[in-house]
């Protein structure tokens, strides 16, 4: 991460340019297929010999239990909502992401701070505070945004796991039932993601395509990062790295 930087006021004890690895964030609304594609990307990268760490939203040792408890009804306000996720993110950043980047791993982040920015904006109408809170976050080398329209998303979610309370933004009381609320909430999130895609230069991937096409698109965005001076912990040089055939 040669040109690495923080979003805002960074961690006082760390210079991000010391990090050798690459940080890749995969963003997109709920039910868009992020985790499936991240698994496939990990496989693809590991076959080429790269060390890969995947890290997922709310999955920190410190906070995953706390967030579950909060979601069961102990936390309702916008500020503690965002701060809980920020704490989870900070824990993973300092204990997983930064150590992995320091040893030259490729870090695949299933969701990144943009998810928190979108959710807080939808709840508050204000962009600044949550961006300040996440000021200690590293700017990723690449953000792939798996974009889907809300109509397609609705069908896909109903067909697979169904709609849940939080993914429907029921705390916001946007609609009279789960379906209406889900649609409104996800539309607002997509709208905000679209704005951020321009502001933060996301690589936008059309997630309405077939899984194979999506995976190929993701790999083509990631490939250029691999050839630019990435020090793989397992491979001595870049010429051994063959692009994998698209599945």
């Amino acid at each position: 991460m040669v040109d690495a930087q923080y979003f805002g006021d960074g961690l006082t004890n760390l210079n991000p340019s010391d990090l050798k690895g690459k940080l890749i964030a995969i963003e997109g609304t709920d039910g868009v297929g992020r985790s499936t594609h991240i698994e496939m990307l990990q496989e693809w990268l590991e076959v080429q010999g790269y060390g890969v760490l995947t890290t997922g939203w709310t999955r920190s040792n410190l906070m995953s239990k706390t967030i579950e408890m909060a979601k069961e009804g102990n936390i309702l306000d916008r500020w503690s909502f965002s701060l809980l996720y920020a704490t989870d993110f900070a824990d993973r950043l300092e204990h997983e992401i930064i150590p992995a980047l320091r040893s030259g791993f490729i870090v695949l982040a299933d969701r990144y701070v943009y998810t928190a920015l979108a959710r807080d904006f939808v709840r508050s109408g204000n962009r600044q505070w949550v961006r300040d809170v996440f000021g200690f976050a590293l700017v990723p080398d690449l953000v792939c945004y798996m974009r889907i329209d809300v109509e397609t998303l609705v069908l896909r979610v109903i067909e697979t796991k169904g709609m849940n309370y939080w993914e429907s933004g029921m705390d916001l009381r946007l609609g009279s039932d789960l379906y209406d609320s889900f649609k409104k909430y996800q539309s607002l999130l997509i709208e905000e993601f679209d704005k951020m895609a321009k502001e933060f230069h996301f690589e936008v991937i059309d997630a309405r395509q077939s899984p194979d096409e999506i995976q190929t698109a993701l790999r083509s965005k990631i490939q250029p990062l691999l050839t630019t001076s990435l020090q793989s912990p397992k491979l001595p040089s870049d010429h051994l790295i063959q692009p994998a055939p698209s599945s």
Partner: protein
Amino acid sequence: MSEQTPLSRHPHPYPGKLITVEGIDGSGKSTQLQLLHKWLESKGHRVFFTEWNSSELVKETTKRGKKNKSLTPTTFSLLHATDFASRQYHEILPPLKAGMIVLADRYMYTAFARDVVRGVSPEWIRKLYSFAITPDMAFYFKVPIETAISRLLGGTRGQFKFYEAGMDMNLNPDMTESFRIFQSRILAQYEKVVDEFHLITMDATKDIEAQQNEMRRLVEEALKDYKPRRGTHGRRTVFWRRFDEPKPE
């Protein structure tokens, strides 16, 4: 959720009053706040008390983090901010809106002093708490480090706590020495905070009684225009009397 962000450093719009105390461990701030609490209640005020880092959800997490020593300055800071946000929403805002007096043992200034000593950016921590309601009165109990040490060692506690002595920061293997270094740095940060946010400095070396008299005088003055809410008890009596009176006749 649609609550507007209260502008930091601007007076809050609520009918209640928010009074906070700050100071290092051993400054006597909690004792003073407790005595103020008694006095306000004796004058018939409805008072609500809230304490730093006390929400169930976050306390459990902090305990877990401390146990496996995984807390960093950033997560330590964010956890306290989460606790504060949750308490502001559930404990501070409702009584203020109801016109009550809220007493807070430690407020955001604790984070501005302590978290900065632990190593987070002073700018970041101030932005983090920009949503905090500005207190009507914020007291700072100023005490020299040696007085705090002799109070803690000689007093009811008899010893230091691991984290308040900053033992996690590896400043010195001796707990008293570590406390001295850590809390001296916090004192220095408090000095900046006092100027920046115009905290009311109290001489915490004085007798408990003398400090309390001074504090009560200042609070009384600040409450001059405050319309106290005396709760429902008094009114309920009047209400029933109205119905009861005709019967005996």
